[in-house]
Protein backbone atom coordinates (compact mmCIF):
# COMPACT_ATOMS: atom_id res chain seq x y z
CA UNK A 1 0.00 0.00 0.00
CA UNK A 2 1.36 3.35 -1.11
CA UNK A 3 -0.28 6.55 0.08
CA UNK A 4 0.82 10.06 -0.88
CA UNK A 5 -0.75 13.08 0.74
CA UNK A 6 -0.21 16.65 -0.49
CA UNK A 7 3.27 15.95 -1.74
CA UNK A 8 5.20 18.98 -2.93
CA UNK A 9 8.70 18.93 -4.29
CA UNK A 10 10.80 21.95 -5.13
CA UNK A 11 14.37 21.30 -6.21
CA UNK A 12 17.16 23.51 -4.88
CA UNK A 13 17.36 25.27 -8.27
CA UNK A 14 13.76 26.44 -7.86
CA UNK A 15 12.09 23.97 -10.22
CA UNK A 16 8.73 22.83 -8.88
CA UNK A 17 8.47 19.15 -9.80
CA UNK A 18 5.47 18.06 -7.74
CA UNK A 19 2.74 20.51 -6.91
CA UNK A 20 0.38 18.84 -4.46
CA UNK A 21 0.02 15.14 -5.24
CA UNK A 22 -2.32 12.87 -3.31
CA UNK A 23 -2.82 9.29 -4.39
CA UNK A 24 -3.49 5.82 -3.01
CA UNK A 25 -2.19 2.65 -4.58
CA UNK A 26 -3.42 -0.58 -3.07
CA UNK A 27 -1.35 -3.70 -2.66
CA UNK A 28 -1.38 -5.79 -5.85
CA UNK A 29 -2.37 -2.94 -8.19
CA UNK A 30 -0.79 -2.36 -11.59
CA UNK A 31 -0.44 1.36 -12.29
CA UNK A 32 0.85 3.26 -15.31
CA UNK A 33 2.19 6.73 -14.72
CA UNK A 34 1.96 8.79 -17.92
CA UNK A 35 2.52 12.40 -18.88
CA UNK A 36 4.74 14.60 -21.01
CA UNK A 37 8.46 14.86 -20.39
CA UNK A 38 9.33 17.12 -17.48
CA UNK A 39 5.85 16.82 -15.98
CA UNK A 40 7.14 15.28 -12.77
CA UNK A 41 6.80 11.56 -13.57
CA UNK A 42 10.36 10.75 -12.65
CA UNK A 43 10.22 12.73 -9.43
CA UNK A 44 6.97 10.97 -8.57
CA UNK A 45 8.66 7.61 -9.12
CA UNK A 46 11.82 8.61 -7.25
CA UNK A 47 9.75 9.61 -4.22
CA UNK A 48 8.63 5.99 -3.84
CA UNK A 49 12.05 4.53 -3.34
CA UNK A 50 13.25 7.55 -1.44
CA UNK A 51 15.75 8.74 -4.02
CA UNK A 52 14.16 12.13 -3.46
CA UNK A 53 12.51 13.49 -0.34
CA UNK A 54 9.34 15.58 -0.55
CA UNK A 55 9.62 19.24 0.39
CA UNK A 56 6.31 18.81 2.21
CA UNK A 57 3.59 16.20 2.51
CA UNK A 58 3.80 12.54 3.39
CA UNK A 59 4.46 9.29 1.55
CA UNK A 60 3.53 6.19 3.48
CA UNK A 61 4.60 2.80 2.15
CA UNK A 62 3.56 -0.23 4.17
CA UNK A 63 3.16 1.94 7.23
CA UNK A 64 6.47 3.80 6.96
CA UNK A 65 6.48 7.54 6.28
CA UNK A 66 9.27 8.11 3.77
CA UNK A 67 9.23 11.86 4.37
CA UNK A 68 10.44 11.24 7.90
CA UNK A 69 12.56 8.18 7.22
CA UNK A 70 16.16 8.58 8.41
CA UNK A 71 18.87 8.22 5.77
CA UNK A 72 20.28 5.26 7.66
CA UNK A 73 16.96 3.38 7.28
CA UNK A 74 16.73 3.87 3.52
CA UNK A 75 18.64 0.67 2.68
CA UNK A 76 16.11 -1.37 4.66
CA UNK A 77 13.24 0.26 2.77
CA UNK A 78 14.86 -0.55 -0.56
CA UNK A 79 15.09 -4.21 0.31
CA UNK A 80 11.29 -4.27 0.09
CA UNK A 81 11.07 -2.35 -3.17
CA UNK A 82 12.35 -3.51 -6.54
CA UNK A 83 13.44 -0.89 -9.05
CA UNK A 84 13.78 -1.29 -12.83
CA UNK A 85 15.21 1.32 -15.20
CA UNK A 86 15.22 2.12 -18.86
CA UNK A 87 19.01 1.56 -19.07
CA UNK A 88 18.95 -1.78 -17.14
CA UNK A 89 21.81 -0.77 -14.82
CA UNK A 90 23.60 -4.09 -15.07
CA UNK A 91 27.27 -4.52 -14.20
CA UNK A 92 29.08 -5.41 -17.46
CA UNK A 93 31.84 -7.41 -15.81
CA UNK A 94 29.47 -9.74 -14.01
CA UNK A 95 27.55 -12.63 -15.54
CA UNK A 96 23.78 -12.78 -15.57
CA UNK A 97 23.86 -14.97 -12.50
CA UNK A 98 26.29 -12.68 -10.67
CA UNK A 99 24.29 -9.58 -11.54
CA UNK A 100 21.20 -11.04 -9.92
CA UNK A 101 23.11 -12.54 -7.01
CA UNK A 102 24.69 -9.12 -6.40
CA UNK A 103 21.41 -7.82 -4.97
CA UNK A 104 21.45 -10.56 -2.36
CA UNK A 105 25.17 -10.45 -1.65
CA UNK A 106 25.12 -6.81 -0.68
CA UNK A 107 22.39 -7.46 1.87
CA UNK A 108 24.52 -10.30 3.23
CA UNK A 109 22.27 -13.21 2.36
CA UNK A 110 23.84 -16.64 2.87
CA UNK A 111 25.48 -18.20 -0.24
CA UNK A 112 23.12 -21.17 -0.12
CA UNK A 113 19.99 -19.04 -0.12
CA UNK A 114 21.46 -16.83 -2.83
CA UNK A 115 21.96 -19.73 -5.20
CA UNK A 116 18.45 -21.06 -4.70
CA UNK A 117 16.71 -17.71 -5.07
CA UNK A 118 18.75 -16.60 -8.08
CA UNK A 119 18.08 -19.80 -10.02
CA UNK A 120 14.36 -19.57 -9.20
CA UNK A 121 14.06 -16.03 -10.42
CA UNK A 122 16.16 -16.66 -13.55
CA UNK A 123 13.81 -19.50 -14.33
CA UNK A 124 10.86 -17.14 -13.94
CA UNK A 125 12.26 -14.60 -16.41
CA UNK A 126 13.27 -17.40 -18.81
CA UNK A 127 17.03 -16.95 -18.65
CA UNK A 128 18.06 -20.01 -16.69
CA UNK A 129 20.11 -21.31 -19.61
CA UNK A 130 21.92 -17.98 -20.03
CA UNK A 131 23.07 -17.63 -16.41
CA UNK A 132 26.74 -17.69 -17.42
CA UNK A 133 26.40 -15.09 -20.17
CA UNK A 134 27.62 -11.54 -19.81
CA UNK A 135 25.20 -8.64 -20.36
CA UNK A 136 26.79 -7.61 -23.68
CA UNK A 137 26.12 -11.10 -25.05
CA UNK A 138 22.38 -10.63 -24.56
CA UNK A 139 19.70 -8.73 -26.46
CA UNK A 140 18.18 -5.60 -24.94
CA UNK A 141 15.06 -7.50 -23.95
CA UNK A 142 17.09 -10.18 -22.25
CA UNK A 143 19.14 -7.58 -20.39
CA UNK A 144 15.96 -5.99 -19.11
CA UNK A 145 14.80 -9.43 -17.97
CA UNK A 146 17.99 -9.76 -15.96
CA UNK A 147 17.39 -6.40 -14.35
CA UNK A 148 13.80 -7.40 -13.56
CA UNK A 149 15.06 -10.68 -12.10
CA UNK A 150 17.40 -8.66 -9.89
CA UNK A 151 14.58 -6.36 -8.76
CA UNK A 152 12.34 -9.23 -7.65
CA UNK A 153 14.92 -11.66 -6.29
CA UNK A 154 14.26 -10.21 -2.84
CA UNK A 155 10.52 -10.91 -3.17
CA UNK A 156 9.59 -7.24 -2.76
CA UNK A 157 5.97 -6.19 -2.30
CA UNK A 158 6.39 -3.33 -4.75
CA UNK A 159 8.22 -3.05 -8.08
CA UNK A 160 8.82 0.41 -9.46
CA UNK A 161 9.77 0.73 -13.12
CA UNK A 162 10.90 3.90 -14.84
CA UNK A 163 10.26 3.47 -18.60
CA UNK A 164 11.35 -0.18 -18.63
CA UNK A 165 10.54 -0.55 -22.35
CA UNK A 166 12.03 2.79 -23.40
CA UNK A 167 15.09 1.20 -25.00
CA UNK A 168 13.40 -1.86 -26.48
CA UNK A 169 11.79 -2.71 -29.80
CA UNK A 170 8.03 -3.50 -29.76
CA UNK A 171 8.51 -7.26 -29.73
CA UNK A 172 10.84 -7.21 -26.74
CA UNK A 173 8.62 -4.65 -25.04
CA UNK A 174 5.67 -7.03 -25.14
CA UNK A 175 7.75 -9.78 -23.63
CA UNK A 176 8.78 -7.50 -20.80
CA UNK A 177 5.18 -6.41 -20.22
CA UNK A 178 4.06 -10.02 -20.02
CA UNK A 179 6.71 -10.58 -17.41
CA UNK A 180 5.48 -7.62 -15.37
CA UNK A 181 1.95 -8.94 -15.63
CA UNK A 182 3.16 -12.30 -14.36
CA UNK A 183 4.87 -10.65 -11.42
CA UNK A 184 1.75 -8.62 -10.74
CA UNK A 185 -0.30 -11.83 -10.74
CA UNK A 186 1.73 -13.05 -7.80
CA UNK A 187 0.42 -10.09 -5.79
CA UNK A 188 3.23 -7.62 -6.31
CA UNK A 189 2.30 -3.97 -6.75
CA UNK A 190 3.69 -2.49 -9.96
CA UNK A 191 4.11 1.22 -10.60
CA UNK A 192 5.40 1.94 -14.08
CA UNK A 193 6.23 5.25 -15.70
CA UNK A 194 5.91 4.86 -19.45
CA UNK A 195 5.69 6.67 -22.78
CA UNK A 196 4.47 3.58 -24.60
CA UNK A 197 1.01 4.44 -25.87
CA UNK A 198 0.36 1.08 -27.47
CA UNK A 199 1.07 -0.85 -24.30
CA UNK A 200 -1.04 1.38 -22.10
CA UNK A 201 -3.98 1.23 -24.47
CA UNK A 202 -3.79 -2.50 -25.02
CA UNK A 203 -3.06 -3.76 -21.50
CA UNK A 204 -5.79 -1.87 -19.72
CA UNK A 205 -4.72 -0.91 -16.23
CA UNK A 206 -5.07 2.01 -13.88
CA UNK A 207 -3.55 5.14 -15.44
CA UNK A 208 -2.30 8.15 -13.47
CA UNK A 209 -1.53 11.13 -15.70
CA UNK A 210 0.77 13.81 -14.32
CA UNK A 211 1.13 17.28 -15.81
CA UNK A 212 2.98 20.22 -14.31
CA UNK A 213 3.45 18.36 -11.07
CA UNK A 214 -0.25 17.55 -10.58
CA UNK A 215 -2.40 14.50 -11.16
CA UNK A 216 -4.74 15.51 -13.98
CA UNK A 217 -6.32 12.12 -14.55
CA UNK A 218 -6.66 8.88 -12.58
CA UNK A 219 -8.71 6.17 -14.28
CA UNK A 220 -9.19 2.53 -13.32
CA UNK A 221 -8.91 1.20 -16.88
CA UNK A 222 -7.48 4.20 -18.63
CA UNK A 223 -5.96 5.18 -21.94
CA UNK A 224 -2.61 6.74 -22.66
CA UNK A 225 -4.36 9.89 -23.81
CA UNK A 226 -1.46 11.71 -25.45
CA UNK A 227 -0.40 11.88 -29.08
CA UNK A 228 2.41 9.41 -29.67
Amino acid sequence: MIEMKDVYKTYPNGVIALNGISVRIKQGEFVYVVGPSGAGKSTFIKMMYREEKPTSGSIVINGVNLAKLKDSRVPLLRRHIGVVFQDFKLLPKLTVYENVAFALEVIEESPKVIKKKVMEVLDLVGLKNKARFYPNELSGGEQQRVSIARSIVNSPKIVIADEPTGNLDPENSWGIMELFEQINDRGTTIVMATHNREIVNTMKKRVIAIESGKIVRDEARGEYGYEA
Partner: protein
Amino acid sequence: MRLSTLRRHARESLKSLGRNGWMTFASISAVTVTLLLVGVFLVIMFNMNHFANKIENDVEIRVYIDLTATDKDKQALKAQIEGISEVKDVQYSSKEQELQNLIKSFGEEGSSFRLFEQDNPLSDVYIVKAAKPTDTMKVAKKIETFKFAHKVRYGKGQVEKLFKTLRIARNVGLGLIVGLLFTAMFLISNTIKITIFARRREIEIMRLVGATNGFIRWPFFLEGLWLGVIGAIVPISLILFVYYNIYAFLKPKLTVPFLQLLPFNPFMWEISFVLLMLGACIGVWGSMMSVRKFLKV
Protein backbone atom coordinates in the same frame (compact mmCIF):
# COMPACT_ATOMS: atom_id res chain seq x y z
CA MET B 1 29.38 -9.76 9.58
CA ARG B 2 29.48 -13.01 7.69
CA LEU B 3 32.85 -14.48 6.83
CA SER B 4 31.81 -14.71 3.20
CA THR B 5 31.02 -10.99 3.26
CA LEU B 6 34.38 -10.13 4.74
CA ARG B 7 36.07 -12.25 2.09
CA ARG B 8 34.09 -10.44 -0.55
CA HIS B 9 35.19 -7.04 0.79
CA ALA B 10 38.82 -8.14 0.89
CA ARG B 11 38.61 -9.47 -2.66
CA GLU B 12 36.98 -6.30 -3.94
CA SER B 13 39.54 -4.05 -2.28
CA LEU B 14 42.48 -6.02 -3.69
CA LYS B 15 40.94 -6.09 -7.16
CA SER B 16 40.58 -2.36 -7.00
CA LEU B 17 44.24 -1.91 -6.06
CA GLY B 18 45.22 -3.84 -9.16
CA ARG B 19 42.78 -2.05 -11.44
CA ASN B 20 44.13 1.38 -10.51
CA GLY B 21 47.73 0.27 -10.71
CA TRP B 22 49.45 3.60 -11.20
CA MET B 23 47.44 5.50 -8.66
CA THR B 24 48.01 2.67 -6.22
CA PHE B 25 51.71 2.94 -6.90
CA ALA B 26 51.66 6.72 -6.45
CA SER B 27 49.80 6.49 -3.15
CA ILE B 28 52.01 3.77 -1.78
CA SER B 29 55.08 5.77 -2.80
CA ALA B 30 53.69 8.83 -1.06
CA VAL B 31 53.15 6.85 2.11
CA THR B 32 56.59 5.30 1.77
CA VAL B 33 58.38 8.64 1.39
CA THR B 34 56.35 10.21 4.17
CA LEU B 35 56.90 7.39 6.61
CA LEU B 36 60.58 7.19 5.75
CA LEU B 37 61.05 10.84 6.60
CA VAL B 38 58.84 10.59 9.65
CA GLY B 39 60.72 7.49 10.75
CA VAL B 40 64.16 9.03 10.32
CA PHE B 41 63.02 12.11 12.13
CA LEU B 42 61.53 10.09 14.98
CA VAL B 43 64.75 8.12 15.36
CA ILE B 44 66.80 11.30 15.49
CA MET B 45 64.37 13.02 17.81
CA PHE B 46 64.20 10.17 20.28
CA ASN B 47 67.96 9.88 20.34
CA MET B 48 68.34 13.60 20.88
CA ASN B 49 65.88 13.41 23.72
CA HIS B 50 67.88 10.55 25.08
CA PHE B 51 71.07 12.65 24.99
CA ALA B 52 69.26 15.58 26.48
CA ASN B 53 68.01 13.51 29.39
CA LYS B 54 71.46 12.14 30.00
CA ILE B 55 73.01 15.59 29.92
CA GLU B 56 70.24 16.95 32.05
CA ASN B 57 70.93 14.34 34.68
CA ASP B 58 74.62 15.17 34.51
CA VAL B 59 74.10 18.80 35.39
CA GLU B 60 75.74 19.43 38.72
CA ILE B 61 76.67 22.39 40.85
CA ARG B 62 80.26 22.68 42.02
CA VAL B 63 80.61 24.63 45.21
CA TYR B 64 84.20 25.68 45.81
CA ILE B 65 84.80 25.90 49.54
CA ASP B 66 86.65 28.89 50.89
CA LEU B 67 90.28 28.02 51.73
CA THR B 68 89.93 29.47 55.21
CA ALA B 69 87.05 27.17 56.14
CA THR B 70 87.70 24.76 58.98
CA ASP B 71 86.31 21.24 59.09
CA LYS B 72 83.54 22.53 61.27
CA ASP B 73 82.70 25.28 58.81
CA LYS B 74 82.58 22.70 56.04
CA GLN B 75 80.17 20.58 58.06
CA ALA B 76 77.97 23.60 58.64
CA LEU B 77 78.00 24.49 54.95
CA LYS B 78 77.07 20.95 53.99
CA ALA B 79 74.19 21.01 56.43
CA GLN B 80 73.05 24.32 55.01
CA ILE B 81 73.14 22.99 51.44
CA GLU B 82 71.32 19.84 52.41
CA GLY B 83 68.70 22.06 54.02
CA ILE B 84 67.62 23.38 50.63
CA SER B 85 64.50 21.43 49.74
CA GLU B 86 65.33 21.02 46.02
CA VAL B 87 68.71 19.41 46.70
CA LYS B 88 68.95 15.69 46.13
CA ASP B 89 72.55 14.87 46.82
CA VAL B 90 75.72 16.48 48.17
CA GLN B 91 79.12 14.87 47.61
CA TYR B 92 82.40 16.03 49.09
CA SER B 93 85.51 16.02 46.96
CA SER B 94 88.79 17.04 48.58
CA LYS B 95 91.34 19.14 46.71
CA GLU B 96 93.60 16.10 46.44
CA GLN B 97 90.85 14.18 44.68
CA GLU B 98 90.16 17.15 42.45
CA LEU B 99 93.78 17.25 41.37
CA GLN B 100 93.81 13.53 40.63
CA ASN B 101 90.66 13.96 38.52
CA LEU B 102 92.29 16.83 36.68
CA ILE B 103 95.44 14.83 35.97
CA LYS B 104 93.37 11.90 34.78
CA SER B 105 91.23 14.02 32.48
CA PHE B 106 94.26 15.34 30.65
CA GLY B 107 95.60 11.87 30.02
CA GLU B 108 99.28 11.81 29.00
CA GLU B 109 99.85 15.51 29.42
CA GLY B 110 98.19 15.39 32.81
CA SER B 111 101.44 14.32 34.38
CA SER B 112 102.74 17.88 34.23
CA PHE B 113 100.16 18.77 36.85
CA ARG B 114 101.91 16.43 39.25
CA LEU B 115 104.05 19.41 40.23
CA PHE B 116 101.09 20.75 42.12
CA GLU B 117 100.85 17.69 44.30
CA GLN B 118 103.26 19.41 46.71
CA ASP B 119 101.40 22.69 46.82
CA ASN B 120 97.81 22.17 45.73
CA PRO B 121 96.16 25.43 44.58
CA LEU B 122 92.72 23.87 44.18
CA SER B 123 89.81 24.12 46.57
CA ASP B 124 87.82 21.44 48.28
CA VAL B 125 84.50 21.06 46.50
CA TYR B 126 80.95 20.07 47.24
CA ILE B 127 79.22 18.53 44.24
CA VAL B 128 75.51 19.24 44.51
CA LYS B 129 72.71 17.74 42.48
CA ALA B 130 69.21 19.15 42.34
CA ALA B 131 66.29 16.74 42.45
CA LYS B 132 65.00 18.28 39.22
CA PRO B 133 67.62 19.46 36.71
CA THR B 134 65.54 22.55 35.98
CA ASP B 135 65.96 23.70 39.60
CA THR B 136 69.73 23.81 39.22
CA MET B 137 69.93 27.56 38.74
CA LYS B 138 67.71 28.30 41.72
CA VAL B 139 69.74 26.06 43.98
CA ALA B 140 72.99 27.58 42.74
CA LYS B 141 71.73 31.09 43.51
CA LYS B 142 70.87 30.07 47.06
CA ILE B 143 74.20 28.43 47.71
CA GLU B 144 76.02 31.55 46.53
CA THR B 145 74.66 33.40 49.55
CA PHE B 146 76.08 30.90 52.04
CA LYS B 147 79.22 31.67 54.02
CA PHE B 148 82.38 29.79 52.96
CA ALA B 149 80.86 29.07 49.54
CA HIS B 150 83.72 30.75 47.74
CA LYS B 151 82.54 30.12 44.18
CA VAL B 152 79.53 28.36 42.71
CA ARG B 153 79.76 26.92 39.21
CA TYR B 154 77.35 25.05 36.98
CA GLY B 155 77.01 24.70 33.21
CA LYS B 156 75.32 28.06 33.05
CA GLY B 157 74.07 29.05 29.60
CA GLN B 158 75.32 26.03 27.73
CA VAL B 159 72.67 23.66 29.01
CA GLU B 160 69.92 26.17 28.30
CA LYS B 161 71.26 26.74 24.80
CA LEU B 162 71.30 23.02 24.07
CA PHE B 163 67.73 22.60 25.22
CA LYS B 164 66.62 25.56 23.14
CA THR B 165 68.24 24.16 20.01
CA LEU B 166 66.65 20.79 20.61
CA ARG B 167 63.27 22.40 21.07
CA ILE B 168 63.50 24.35 17.82
CA ALA B 169 64.66 21.28 15.91
CA ARG B 170 61.77 19.34 17.34
CA ASN B 171 59.16 21.94 16.39
CA VAL B 172 60.47 22.37 12.86
CA GLY B 173 60.53 18.60 12.43
CA LEU B 174 57.01 18.22 13.77
CA GLY B 175 55.75 20.86 11.35
CA LEU B 176 57.44 19.03 8.51
CA ILE B 177 55.93 15.72 9.55
CA VAL B 178 52.42 17.11 9.75
CA GLY B 179 52.81 18.57 6.26
CA LEU B 180 54.06 15.28 4.89
CA LEU B 181 51.30 13.30 6.53
CA PHE B 182 48.72 15.58 4.95
CA THR B 183 50.30 15.19 1.53
CA ALA B 184 50.15 11.43 1.82
CA MET B 185 46.56 11.50 3.01
CA PHE B 186 45.62 13.80 0.16
CA LEU B 187 47.18 11.44 -2.37
CA ILE B 188 45.46 8.42 -0.89
CA SER B 189 42.17 10.21 -0.78
CA ASN B 190 42.59 11.01 -4.48
CA THR B 191 43.42 7.43 -5.35
CA ILE B 192 40.32 6.22 -3.59
CA LYS B 193 38.30 8.92 -5.30
CA ILE B 194 39.37 7.52 -8.67
CA THR B 195 38.58 4.05 -7.43
CA ILE B 196 35.14 5.17 -6.40
CA PHE B 197 34.62 6.91 -9.69
CA ALA B 198 35.44 3.69 -11.51
CA ARG B 199 32.90 1.89 -9.38
CA ARG B 200 30.17 4.50 -9.17
CA ARG B 201 27.72 2.40 -11.17
CA GLU B 202 28.32 -0.51 -8.86
CA ILE B 203 27.75 1.74 -5.86
CA GLU B 204 24.61 3.16 -7.41
CA ILE B 205 23.22 -0.35 -7.86
CA MET B 206 24.30 -1.35 -4.37
CA ARG B 207 22.30 1.53 -2.99
CA LEU B 208 19.29 0.71 -5.12
CA VAL B 209 19.11 -2.86 -3.91
CA GLY B 210 19.48 -1.84 -0.28
CA ALA B 211 23.14 -2.15 0.69
CA THR B 212 23.91 -0.14 3.80
CA ASN B 213 26.50 2.64 3.67
CA GLY B 214 28.63 0.61 6.03
CA PHE B 215 28.66 -2.28 3.60
CA ILE B 216 29.55 -0.01 0.68
CA ARG B 217 32.30 1.62 2.68
CA TRP B 218 34.09 -1.59 3.67
CA PRO B 219 36.06 -2.28 0.49
CA PHE B 220 37.28 1.32 0.40
CA PHE B 221 38.21 1.19 4.05
CA LEU B 222 40.26 -1.93 3.35
CA GLU B 223 41.78 -0.41 0.23
CA GLY B 224 43.00 2.59 2.24
CA LEU B 225 44.31 0.25 4.89
CA TRP B 226 46.29 -1.77 2.32
CA LEU B 227 47.76 1.38 0.78
CA GLY B 228 48.92 2.58 4.19
CA VAL B 229 50.24 -0.74 5.42
CA ILE B 230 52.02 -1.64 2.18
CA GLY B 231 53.48 1.86 2.14
CA ALA B 232 54.90 1.26 5.62
CA ILE B 233 56.83 -1.89 4.72
CA VAL B 234 59.76 -0.28 2.91
CA PRO B 235 60.43 2.52 5.42
CA ILE B 236 60.22 0.12 8.35
CA SER B 237 62.63 -2.38 6.81
CA LEU B 238 64.99 0.36 5.72
CA ILE B 239 65.07 2.05 9.10
CA LEU B 240 65.50 -1.26 10.92
CA PHE B 241 68.38 -2.23 8.64
CA VAL B 242 70.18 1.12 8.73
CA TYR B 243 69.76 1.66 12.44
CA TYR B 244 70.96 -1.83 13.17
CA ASN B 245 74.16 -1.15 11.25
CA ILE B 246 74.71 2.34 12.61
CA TYR B 247 74.18 1.07 16.11
CA ALA B 248 76.58 -1.80 15.64
CA PHE B 249 79.16 0.55 14.09
CA LEU B 250 78.93 3.41 16.60
CA LYS B 251 78.37 1.48 19.80
CA PRO B 252 82.04 0.72 20.46
CA LYS B 253 83.12 4.25 19.44
CA LEU B 254 80.78 6.24 21.61
CA THR B 255 82.48 6.19 24.96
CA VAL B 256 81.33 9.52 26.36
CA PRO B 257 78.75 8.61 28.98
CA PHE B 258 75.94 10.88 27.81
CA LEU B 259 76.47 10.37 24.08
CA GLN B 260 74.79 6.99 23.71
CA LEU B 261 72.35 5.72 21.07
CA LEU B 262 69.13 4.16 22.19
CA PRO B 263 69.54 0.37 22.11
CA PHE B 264 68.03 -1.41 19.09
CA ASN B 265 65.61 -3.40 21.19
CA PRO B 266 62.92 -2.28 22.14
CA PHE B 267 63.36 1.14 20.52
CA MET B 268 63.23 -0.11 16.92
CA TRP B 269 60.16 -2.26 17.53
CA GLU B 270 58.39 0.74 18.98
CA ILE B 271 59.33 2.85 15.96
CA SER B 272 58.16 0.10 13.60
CA PHE B 273 54.87 -0.14 15.40
CA VAL B 274 54.37 3.62 15.30
CA LEU B 275 55.15 3.75 11.56
CA LEU B 276 52.81 0.87 10.80
CA MET B 277 50.01 2.50 12.75
CA LEU B 278 50.67 5.86 11.08
CA GLY B 279 50.54 4.20 7.67
CA ALA B 280 47.29 2.43 8.48
CA CYS B 281 45.76 5.61 9.88
CA ILE B 282 46.61 7.88 6.97
CA GLY B 283 45.43 5.20 4.55
CA VAL B 284 42.11 4.70 6.26
CA TRP B 285 41.60 8.39 6.92
CA GLY B 286 42.37 9.32 3.33
CA SER B 287 39.94 6.77 1.95
CA MET B 288 37.17 7.59 4.40
CA MET B 289 37.45 11.27 3.48
CA SER B 290 36.63 10.60 -0.15
CA VAL B 291 33.97 7.98 0.51
CA ARG B 292 32.13 10.27 2.89
CA LYS B 293 31.49 12.86 0.20
CA PHE B 294 30.25 10.17 -2.12
CA LEU B 295 27.81 8.47 0.21
CA LYS B 296 25.66 11.45 1.06
CA VAL B 297 22.12 10.31 0.35
